[in-house]
């Protein structure tokens, strides 16, 4: 069922369209003696930041406000850094970053179930019996990640108290590219060398384990055993990079810019991870499933989201990383335009929005349109397939390529869809 690791290595090169990325992949950053050259190359390494607004953020309280209509709710719109584009007033800091963002306002994913919606948005496909498509994070870990990278290819920073509807990736890409969950942004458990274990003894025990593992692999090699072995190497690498998870070394002014709450800290960790070479970092912010008191809850949740997100965008830009980092803000669906009897909004997948930014994205672009009160898409309707194509294309990957399972071609993205060129740079 699983393809051979060599095929992965080859396909990775084929998928990469940018020669600079290819060069980086072949040579490794360590070959560049000059720091500026390494920094330049690091900037060319593509990476992804996914902000997952768990539960289904309201498009009317974010990217596609409709004030003054029967569905608009109490909030107003505000101008953004792009003339003519307005956001909900709950996003004042994000509005100042609008020139770095693109909006897709005509999404119809036709799925109002949390779990299925999350799978659709992570894979670009409707769930199919007998085949699990890989998540965007796993795809990026495989196609963009360096084998020498000590950090996991797909890192998921989850909230302190909720798993964020974990949608496990059990696809044919194998467990090596599955998400590594960092609960509350904490470094993986037991990733610190025990104080009573000397460095020399640690090295020695690793060597013994490696020998035993190699002997075992000579007879029983599989994707699982590969992943098992790789996980030790990854753990060892992680131990060296453990400081990335510790925000306490950041100046207080920086921490305050991100906000002294969990999501602010998680965004700061995400920045540190992306700076430190992580390929795909997903940060989940919970919760937006506001069937009751939608407006009070969006006021609170977006009040937490807005500033750290805008700060993260700005910091990535200041560090020269935004051009090579695809930024995605999405949920499993949007929320009903109709306001229910408890001041809530329910699940709604027929006409909603997401925001993109950074790598390969045309800042200030808006694609798709909904009607006056947001109940239907009137122009530029797209589904998750189009979005998945767009994500890959923005990263310089050819979304029309195939995976191969026992020589059976599996399209990387839904062949019935295509990238949304209007938001691509």
């Amino acid at each position, binding site marked *: 069922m699983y393809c051979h690791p060599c095929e992965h290595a080859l396909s990775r090169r084929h998928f990469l369209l940018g020669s600079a990325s290819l060069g980086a992949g072949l040579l490794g950053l360590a070959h560049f003696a000059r720091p500026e050259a390494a920094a330049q190359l690091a900037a060319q390494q593509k990476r992804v930041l996914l902000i997952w607004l768990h*539960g289904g953020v309201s498009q009317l309280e974010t990217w596609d406000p409709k004030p003054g209509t029967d569905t608009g709710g109490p909030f107003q719109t505000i101008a953004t850094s792009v003339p003519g584009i307005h956001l909900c007033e709950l996003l004042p800091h994000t509005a100042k970053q609008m020139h770095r963002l693109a909006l897709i306002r005509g999404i119809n994913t036709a799925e109002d179930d949390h779990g299925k919606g999350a799978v659709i948005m992570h894979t670009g496909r409707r769930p199919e019996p007998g085949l699990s498509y890989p998540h965007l994070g796993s795809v990026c870990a495989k196609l963009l990640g360096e084998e020498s990278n000590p950090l996991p290819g797909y890192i998921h920073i989850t909230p302190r108290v909720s798993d964020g509807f974990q949608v496990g990736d059990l696809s044919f890409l194998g467990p090596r590219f599955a998400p590594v969950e960092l609960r509350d942004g904490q470094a993986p458990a037991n990733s610190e060398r025990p104080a009573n274990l000397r460095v020399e003894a640690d090295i020695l025990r690793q060597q013994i384990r490696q020998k035993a593992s190699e002997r075992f692999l000579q007879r029983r090699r599989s994707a699982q055993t590969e992943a098992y072995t790789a996980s030790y190497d990854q753990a060892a690498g992680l131990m060296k990079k453990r400081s990335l998870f510790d925000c306490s070394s950041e100046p207080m002014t920086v921490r305050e810019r991100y906000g002294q709450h969990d999501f602010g800290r998680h965004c700061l960790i995400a920045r540190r991870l992306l700076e430190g070479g992580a390929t795909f970092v997903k940060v989940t912010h919970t*919760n937006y499933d*506001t069937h009751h008191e939608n407006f009070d809850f969006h006021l609170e949740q977006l009040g937490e989201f807005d500033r750290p997100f805008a700060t993260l965008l700005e910091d990535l830009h200041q560090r020269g990383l935004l051009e090579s980092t695809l930024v995605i803000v999405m949920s499993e669906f949007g929320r009903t335009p109709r306001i229910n009897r408890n001041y809530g909004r329910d699940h709604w997948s027929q006409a909603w929005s997401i925001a993109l930014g950074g790598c390969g994205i045309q800042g200030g672009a808006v694609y798709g349109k909904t009607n006056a009160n947001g109940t239907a898409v009137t122009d530029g309707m797209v589904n998750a397939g189009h979005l998945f194509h767009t994500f890959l294309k923005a990263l310089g990957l050819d979304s029309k390529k195939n995976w191969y399972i026992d020589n059976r071609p599996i399209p990387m993205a839904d062949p019935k869809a295509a990238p949304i060129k209007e938001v691509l740079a």
Partner: protein
Amino acid sequence: MSAPPLVVRVENTREIAAVKAVAPLLGARCDPSGSYVLAGAQDNSLVRWKLGDKTADTLQGHKSWVRALAFAGQTLYSGDWTGRLLAWNYLDAKPTVQANLEAHRGWLRALAVSPDGKILASCGNDRKVRLWSLPNLKPLHTLEGHNCHVYNLAFHPEGQSLVSADLRGVLREWDLSRFAIKRSLDASVLYKYDQVFAADIGGVRSLAFSPEGKLLACAGISNVSNAFAGVGNPLVVLFDWASGKIQTLLRPKEAFQGTAWGVAFGPGGRLLGVAGGDGGMLYAWKPDEAAANFTLKFDSNARDLSLHPDGRRFVVPFESGLLRLYDMAPKGT
């Protein structure tokens, strides 16, 4: 020979008039003359209902929802989610905006007028309580002492104190001679931080003093097990004002899922409360009995409660857009 005294009892409650707004209603108040009811609607308008001939019209001027309403003299004051405070000559044939000012940053949640009619108090999401002199709306003072959104306020009937209440159920009694906190009361039973949804839920949604000022009632939601589905029960926290201690926690007699959106002191010293959630309800309690001893089911979520100055009638605005007038006097009187 004089007529026997009118027995006004909540058990007599019956609808005697209604008007339908085009949008769901948010809050309502009877005016001091008893001639009008003003209600805020989800289309940003105010509905003006003339009780004499049962006609209604709308006042346009707000750009967002209005739940904060108060009267002083011949002026209506209304506050909206943008923080703007508007003054209206609401008795005129065609009312117009007499003043329009930014009173708070963000949602202006409640308004109250002092018993002598000289001070208007406002509160909102900027955590502030503001005092305005009437009728000129000149800023008098800003009271700061809440750590979260301030949801409601009420003047003590004797006029020396103002009480404000916030999302977390913290009540502050303000000494109006010194503009300082006199004491705090704890209604945190109306608040919860939902760990699963990582959000605050609750708050004091309605606040009322008993006519003589000996009791203070705070309405909201309690026992929340799922914030985002609104799974919780209406609760009225009744304080003994002198001691500041909770006297009684007033609950529905039978299980009901929702929030108590309005509370008032009705006839016979009983408390009236309305709730919305899984439908709408009217409750009546004796101050010293936890369980409601009267319940009336509505066909829509009730969102506020305002007692008419005659003491026998009250109005309830509904999510359905209906604004209903009820009478508690015996039929035919």
